């Protein structure tokens, strides 16, 4: 196995020079490295070429790697994913960008019925080794078509892996692992934390990534295995299962309340690091599941079900869920929708009071 940077394995790369990067720069770095290392890697999507992407994630990549490795596509998500399936069948390793997760729906048939099923239906003759990158989540006043978190649609599909990074360090290592993976991976990038960790206080100045310990990104190649959670902080009082932006919200709330919480950043939703979940919940006996996506049939429901199935006799309180509301993401009331410190704090109080 290639060198790994994970919490469990601090590895020789700790000696690699480290730069402070925001999440966009870390993603750009990962793409750059993979374009360099593997001639099969192709980066494509709306506005990703000359312009470098609406969030700049592909900036300068076309200039460096050429127009047939990094290019713009027509505005057709069905076409982008469909073409990526064909490229994968040829033997390339496409990394399509869907400009916003909210735009991914026209490509669902190609993802769900095709990319996710090729290996199975052809008994391994054809595979879809693609990584679909897409910015997701709210908190940037994007309204209902630029704010959604549709991860549960994809975790529900057999044959897809779903990854959500929460730091620049992880974004780079996980993206490299996703690109190298021989299965189709949905790589959701929480765009609210592209430029800095967000603690949920929208009315306070945003902090940049610069001084955050997880913004220290080793130079060069490293990968973080899919399916491994990260312990953000250890604790005894309760377990918080989080991913993406909500890792930072949970961290801030627990710090403010002085709660000795153990926070798990799941990083990969499918395949899930069930061992890490079980280990933590068995220790603390209390579990909070938190995500920004809508509540009903959200991934939190799956987590809550798994925890009660597997850790029931260790539980001292019902599993709590903190989620977005079951409404479209409202533009003007975005912060009323967002599962911020109040909703999270109440759920923690309830768990600890039980």
């Amino acid at each position, binding site marked *: 196995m290639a060198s790994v940077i994970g919490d469990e394995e601090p590895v020789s790369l700790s000696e690699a020079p480290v730069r402070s990067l925001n999440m966009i720069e870390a993603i750009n770095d990962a793409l750059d490295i993979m374009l360099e290392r593997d001639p099969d890697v192709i980066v494509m999507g709306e506005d990703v070429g000359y312009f470098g992407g609406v969030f700049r994630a592909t900036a300068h990549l076309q200039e460096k790697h050429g127009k047939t490795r990094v290019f713009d596509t027509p505005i*057709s998500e069905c*076409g982008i994913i*469909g*073409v990526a399936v064909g490229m994968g069948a040829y033997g390339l390793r496409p990394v399509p960008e869907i400009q916003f997760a909210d735009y991914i729906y026209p490509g669902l*048939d190609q993802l769900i*019925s*095709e990319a996710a099923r090729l290996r199975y239906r052809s*008994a391994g003759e054809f595979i879809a080794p693609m990584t679909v990158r897409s910015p997701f989540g709210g908190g940037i006043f994007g309204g209902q078509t630029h704010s959604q978190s549709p991860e549960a649609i994809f975790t529900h599909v057999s044959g897809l892996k779903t990854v959500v990074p929460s730091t620049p360090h992880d974004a780079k290592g996980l993206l490299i692992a996703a690109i190298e993976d021989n299965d189709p991976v949905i790589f959701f990038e929480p765009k609210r934390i592209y430029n800095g960790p967000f603690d949920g206080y929208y009315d306070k100045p945003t902090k940049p990534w610069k001084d955050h310990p997880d913004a220290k990104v080793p130079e060069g190649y490293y990968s973080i295995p899919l399916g491994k959670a990260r312990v953000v902080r250890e604790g005894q009082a309760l377990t918080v299962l989080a991913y993406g932006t909500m890792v930072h919200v949970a961290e801030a709330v627990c710090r403010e309340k002085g709660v000795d919480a153990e926070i798990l950043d799941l990083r990969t939703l499918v395949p899930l690091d069930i061992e890490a979940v079980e280990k933590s919940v068995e220790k603390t006996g209390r579990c909070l599941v938190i995500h920004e996506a809508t509540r009903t049939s959200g991934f939190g429901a799956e987590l809550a079900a798994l925890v009660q199935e597997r850790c029931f006799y260790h539980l001292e309180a019902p599993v709590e869920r903190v989620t977005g509301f079951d409404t479209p993401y409202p533009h003007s009331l975005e912060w009323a929708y967002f599962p911020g410190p109040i909703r999270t704090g109440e759920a923690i109080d309830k768990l600890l009071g039980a």
Partner: protein
Amino acid sequence: MAREGERGRYNRPRLSLHVPEPQFRPGDTVDFSNIPVSEAGAQARPDEACQPIETTALCYDLVRVLGDDHRAHGPWDPRLAPDELRQMLRDMALVRAFDERMYRGQRQGKTSFYMKCTGEEATSVAAVHALASDDMVFPSYRQQGILIARGYPLIEMINQIYSNRGDKLKGRQLPIMYSSRAHSFFTISGNLATQVPQAVGWAMASAIRHDSRIAATWLGEGSTAEGDFHSGMTFAAVYNAPVIFNVVNNQWAISSFSGFAGSERTTFAARAIGYGIAGLRVDGNDPLAVYAAVRWAADRARSNNGPTLIEHFTYRAEGHSTSDDPSAYRSAREREEWPLGDPIMRLKQHLIAIGEWSDEQHREMDLALAEEVKAATKEAEKNGILGHGMHHPFHTMFEDVFEELPWHLEEQADQAIRERQIKWPQ
């Protein structure tokens, strides 16, 4: 109570919705004299490197080579050697013999489902004869002719149809949804037109890699209504991808006639022009015309002159599949009245007309092919038929979802195996 808006509109003409209706329904007598049948040999053949717009007239005409005299005519005559013509005839006849036997097998309960391509054999067999054997094909579900023409063993096809223990696809796919990477034949999807942008992506990859192989895809006229078709056409035009779109217009999408895909307004070939793609409309029951058109498109793609859409104008002589009864929605007379004849008969008569074949040879060939199919069927049946327990081991159900089995699938596999032990203890 009339609202204000309605009062303001009362003087305008009333709108009406047009819902297409086919010409003939069950019991109707059939008269196809309204279908224009162009004279064989009368269509111009532009240079393969021409501008797409130069193919406009050909999108409304019908490229035909074989005339009523059974001779080849005009600039589209591909001038194939008699051996190649006989091979094409044999491949088409084998497809028909295979279809007959598999259809019967389904009726005998040996499998769940089958689809014939009777009357449409040329649109796959003659087309693939015009491609290189390593050109990648992205078929729909009625192109068994491609596999047969590329020499895929019949027994493998039958194993797949029976979903038995010999099925290379491990019994996971509906019958006839073949896959064979070794024959450059992409895994067939049951979802329609998804293969179209995939073929374009493969062709783009081939061009990115400066390869010499091209891609070809097939879809029915009905599924040109899918967004995937239009996405695929757009990408092909944008990147000048080396790809051929074969639209098999067999007039019927299950029970919906081609009018529900827009045929009342224009031809399917004419779709190409709006995208800036070359378009050809060919007599799909004329194997020489099909060959010539695909060869033209293949040469065009291979010389970096871009994609072509070919409408193969043909007729679905049988039902959509074993699951529908065509006599419930269309006139049984259509098949007999179809003005473009039968592709196997036409090629047979052509070969006889040029002194390269005889009725006697044809009869002998048909008998030999029926025997070949029968022998392959018997051999495949040794591996079992659907529902008789001779399937792949239970654990294979969980394999190939991912490259490696994650914990949740391992747990579910254990459950499935436990259930099996309870059901069949031994």
